[in-house]
């Protein structure tokens, strides 16, 4: 049935203008399909090499017998202060997490500030102090940096780029192409907190319970998981594009299918409510302190137990399984027992009308 079963009737025209973007649109930075197009059609062909081709959030470099993890990330969030964090803490944790997602111990960070003329010095002080605290907590040293100022209106208060260096001490190979049928899919906690904290602050929406960003450095959680078992095949922090995007990336890179039980995915009531009101799906909403792990079936219980005993993984759960069928497709069992496809996000998540 399928294709045969549904047909459309009035109002369902398919008119034709083509949308090849001649300008960069916000969707190119969303982490979804447009970002992927930019990477595959522009960046990869220009900079091709085997480190980059791995397409992970960090590169693992062999340098004189040491394995170094190397990554960079820019932070452009508005507002710069939000419930649960600020742009400074985000800039440290984000880069620490990208290093941690290959199993590395984060060590050194560089920072570049782009400041907009007119930014209150008090705000910059607040951001920098927050970065110092976050770096201390994560055990990384901020070892070099740069500062530029742009004309008023040419930036948005402050943009921060951090680059991180870490050391891989374990003989693990954790990468998005390592998922195998039978592997279990673990999620470290509730989803959508960061994105909805930002969105509700940005839009001035108030909900019954306050929604706070989940920004956190995940490297100690990863270390605990690796202590339990080194049979961890993939790790991703589910930032832009949310858990849905991470799962699709892994399914695609590993050429495997996935089956997710939608009912098992933890979402806070306040986040669920905010998503309902705005017509967003929490699976596509950004997180800044949650990871998805693909773990060999025989190791998954041990890893999950260890996650749950860590403060950043207390709500961890198994949300599904990697399968050989429907390669590159992520299927979700819905609340009522139906099935749907979890597709890649197209661009900016746009709230629905009704």
């Amino acid at each position, binding site marked *: *049935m*399928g*294709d045969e*079963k*549904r*047909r*459309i*009737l*009035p*109002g*369902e*025209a*398919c*008119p*034709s*203008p*083509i*949308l090849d*973007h*001649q*300008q960069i*649109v*916000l*969707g190119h930075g969303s982490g979804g399909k*447009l970002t992927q197009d930019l990477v595959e059609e522009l960046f990869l062909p220009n900079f091709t090499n085997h480190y980059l081709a791995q397409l992970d959030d960090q590169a693992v470099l062999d340098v004189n017998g040491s394995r170094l993890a190397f990554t960079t990330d820019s932070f452009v969030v508005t507002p710069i202060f939000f419930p649960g964090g600020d742009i400074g803490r985000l800039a440290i944790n984000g880069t620490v997490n990208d290093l941690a997602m290959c199993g590395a111990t984060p060590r050194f960070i560089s920072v570049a500030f782009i400041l907009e003329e007119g930014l209150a010095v008090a705000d910059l002080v607040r951001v920098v102090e927050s970065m110092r605290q976050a770096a201390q907590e994560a055990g990384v040293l901020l070892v070099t940096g740069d500062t530029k100022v742009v004309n008023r209106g040419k930036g948005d208060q402050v943009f921060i780029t951090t680059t991180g260096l870490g050391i891989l001490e374990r003989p693990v190979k954790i990468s998005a192409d390592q998922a195998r049928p039978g592997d279990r899919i673990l999620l470290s906690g509730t989803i959508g907190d960061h994105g909805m904290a930002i969105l509700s602050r940005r*839009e001035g*929406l108030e909900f019954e319970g306050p929604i706070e960003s989940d920004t956190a450095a995940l490297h100690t959680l990863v270390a605990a998981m690796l202590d339990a078992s080194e049979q961890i095949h993939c790790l991703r922090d589910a930032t832009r594009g949310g858990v849905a995007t991470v799962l699709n990336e892994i399914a695609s890179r590993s050429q495997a*299918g996935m089956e997710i039980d939608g*009912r098992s995915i933890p979402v806070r009531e306040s986040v*669920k*409510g905010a998503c*309902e009101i*705005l*017509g967003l*799906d929490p699976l596509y909403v950004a997180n800044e302190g949650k990871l998805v792990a693909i773990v060999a079936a025989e190791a998954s219980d041990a890893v999950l137990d260890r996650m749950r005993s860590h403060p950043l993984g207390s709500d961890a759960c198994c949300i599904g399984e990697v*399968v*050989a*069928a*429907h*390669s590159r*497709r992520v*299927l979700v069992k*819905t*609340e*009522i*027992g*139906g*099935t*749907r*496809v979890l*597709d*890649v996000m*197209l*661009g*900016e998540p*746009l*709230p*629905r*009308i*009704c």
Partner: protein
Amino acid sequence: MKYLDEYRDEALAQALLDRIRRVQKRPWMLMEVCGGQTHSIVRYGVDDLLPKEIELVHGPGCPVCVTPLELIDKAHAIASRSDVIFCSFGDMLRVPGSESDLLTVRSRGADVRVVYSPLECLKIARSHPDRQVVFFAIGFETTAPANAMLVSRARQEGIDNISVLVSHVLVPPALEAILDSPVNRVQGFLGPGHVCAIMGYREYEAISARYKVPIVITGFEPSDLLEGVLMAVTQLEEGRAEVENQYARVVTRDGNGAAQGLVSSVFEVCERKWRGVGPIPQSGYRLREEFENFDAERRFEVGAIDTQEPPVCISGEVLRGIKKPHDCPAFGTDCTPAHPLGATMVSSEGACAAYYLYGRHHKATTKG
């Protein structure tokens, strides 16, 4: 979550499915009128669970999809002006006009903003007295009261740098157009719950009686949809054709009188063009004469824009129920949700987008 989880309950869904299986004897084709219902059906896999003799078809009720190309081109012309702050519901930003979409217009420097409520425009207009704030007032009867409220408050408060680009459409004339089609196959409707929350369902009683077709006013949660299907199929099997109200927790027969009063004080019924369908008489709203100062089409003189929909479009055949999305040569190849050619592939409520995902999923599962 309270008031939601109980309508997304697996045991309840299974119980309703059992009852549908017991009642259903013959094959039936039902149409869910609202895009929101289509979205829910796909999101929860409702159609996957129904007996395959019950065919659900998408209705015309996706406000983004039926907004005509011409209006979108007008929106782009207005939004591109440097003196304008153009405000819209989020979905509309990705819908292609003749040349681009609002996201692209924004990337070229236009001030395009997503609002969640039309009333946000009042605040924006007050804080930018030197600029023109334009709201893209689209949608069915559901969004009309809030849009009417914007115009009415703007006049009350003497905020004259606000105007609205109106593209309001009405459900009942669209249902009649479907039922009047000589090749119509729809045998029953899941009626538009939220539209009826505003308008009540008296209008639908006349349609049901005239065309002898069951109309069950239905909600948007999976168990609502299953119960709506059960009620419609029960009527069909028993040879009845009447209006029933599945969504009684929200909808009454007379609807929301205050909202209706507000709407009719600001808008009047007129002929409207529907994307891919063409003009349908008495099928939409325009501003009443006393509010014409707030009409963005007049204020920015875009009335002359008269875009014809491209001939490649298969809407004629689709309108008569002859073609399906995958009969379109571009469907699933040149036209995908990532790279939409048409509105129905853009909005998550659009038939093509829903159909595309469903079809892919189906192929994927059978292959596996």
